[in-house]
């Protein structure tokens, strides 16, 4: 509270401005009555109306939702197990498998899964994308669940066991309810990561399958249009809502 110099304030404010001005511009121009994203002309909802009549966009959104639901459900189950295993049993091999996909550049997982799926003669599409998304989401769920376990009183589980609960009963009725906020936060993160993923999807989707980020990519490769701003704004609202809920559930999450 002492020593917060004006210079520090100015530099930090500039940092926040740098982080937010680009996003604000995207949102503002989504309501702009002009094809060019260059200057403000007037207010309109036209780009949103166009969006809801764009068949390609709607089908891409449907694909994204379906993949995100499947990927977050499966990765939450597997990630919770991984988090518990890493915390209780200090499973080294598992920890390496869980954390490396997060640590290396995404493109590596994308291309190695591409080779893998093609070698297995698996047709690239919704299934291959979902399988790939599960693989990289497990780590994020595991980290959140492990953080939650670390903040938990292990003696409660011990007490349940002493009172004669089986390991499963102790987990189901004591541990799981206590780590539930972490599990839900992990599920929301996995959903967000899946629905936002571009790089790994780009390599594992094949030619026929389009997700929302892939659709956005092909649109911005052709031209900058306010329709992209509109879909971006909606997507931002969705993911930000999910993340705010997730961080509320695990306030200590981003400290670790």
């Amino acid at each position, binding site marked *: 509270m002492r020593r917060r110099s004006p210079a520090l304030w100015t530099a930090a404010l500039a940092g926040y401005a740098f982080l937010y001005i680009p996003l604000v511009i995207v949102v503002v121009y989504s309501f702009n009555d002009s094809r060019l994203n260059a200057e403000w002309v007037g207010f309109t909802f036209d780009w949103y109306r166009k969006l809801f009549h764009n068949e390609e966009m709607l089908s891409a959104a449907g694909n994204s939702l379906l993949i995100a639901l499947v990927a977050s459900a499966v990765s939450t189950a597997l990630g919770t197990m991984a988090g518990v*295993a890493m915390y*209780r049993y200090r499973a080294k091999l598992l920890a390496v498998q869980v954390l490396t996909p997060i640590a290396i550049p995404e493109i590596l997982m994308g291309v190695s899964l591409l*080779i893998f799926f093609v070698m297995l003669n698996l047709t690239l599409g919704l299934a291959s994308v979902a399988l790939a998304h*599960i693989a990289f989401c497990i780590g994020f769920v595991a980290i959140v669940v492990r953080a939650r376990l670390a903040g938990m009183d292990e003696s409660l589980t011990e007490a349940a066991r002493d009172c004669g609960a089986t390991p499963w009963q102790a987990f189901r009725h004591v541990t799981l309810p206590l780590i539930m906020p972490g599990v839900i936060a992990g599920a929301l993160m996995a959903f967000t990561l899946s629905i936002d993923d571009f790089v790994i999807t780009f*390599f594992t989707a094949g030619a026929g399958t389009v997700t929302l980020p892939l659709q956005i990519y092909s649109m911005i490769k052709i031209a900058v249009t306010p329709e992209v701003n509109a879909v971006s704004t909606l997507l931002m609202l969705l993911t*930000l809502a999910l993340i705010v809920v997730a961080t509320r559930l695990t306030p200590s999450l981003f400290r670790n």
Partner: protein
Amino acid sequence: MAARSDGRLGKWLVIGPPLAYLLVFFAAPALIMALASFRTPGEFGGLSPLLENGKIDLNLDSYARFFTDSIYAQIFLKSVWYALLTTLFCLLLAYPLATLIAKSGKRHRDLLLLLVILPFWSNFLIRVYAWMIILGPNAALARMVNGVLAWVGHEPVPLLFSSFAVLICLVYVHLPFMVLPLYANLEKHDQALLDAAQDLGANAWQRFWRITFPLSLPGVYAGAALVFIPALGIFAIPDILGGPEDSLIGNVIKQQFLETRDWPFGSVLSIVLTVAALAIAGFAAWVARGSLGTPSSAGEARA
């Protein structure tokens, strides 16, 4: 203790499913890619058969190509250079942000931190797209810059599809990765050290350079690794915002897999990238562990 009577079966019921999934969908593909780097490209792209006339066809041709054709080493070095610049600029921007958050009262701290994280959670492509708008030829920024350039008698320069666009977006996308570990470190610093230094006559700059900065090095190394590694493998930013000169190693990998369809060579490039990423991560972890007087030990001493 908790593991005492769960038994081996219970343990493997918990470890087994996630481990099996990741062995199949992470470790196996990685090994297959490593093997693919020694194989021969197929006649129509992809890979040629592993068994040719009863002989296993493995060779070092693609590695030889990487090490003899200097264009690929150049692109790799250019990627390292871009990632280094990105790390440096992220550090310069992140330091004041992390300091401000660490010095804020408890009430504002979580909000200020959340404000740094939120942009990271908005879609990656949207954040790249935002810079297409800002740097676009008809946007205010380009008109202003070129207005000034015209005034001093300089040719107009395009901002979009340039190295400048690629770099600014690289910094933009990776900034939160630098702020978080730096904040986590700065938060633990002992104010008493700075007070003591001030009592002994150190000015603000001396206090920062001789105390705060050295103590923050573990945070700096962690942040640098978190920024440098993904920045090294990026392909979408040069693809969308860069000119033809801005092709990085990620773009060449994408090209080898999806356009040229030379999988063995694409795998070689991917392996080089993996080795570089893991080496840097290992180095950062090693340096961070080796630095003396970490804030956590200072904190423990205080407690």
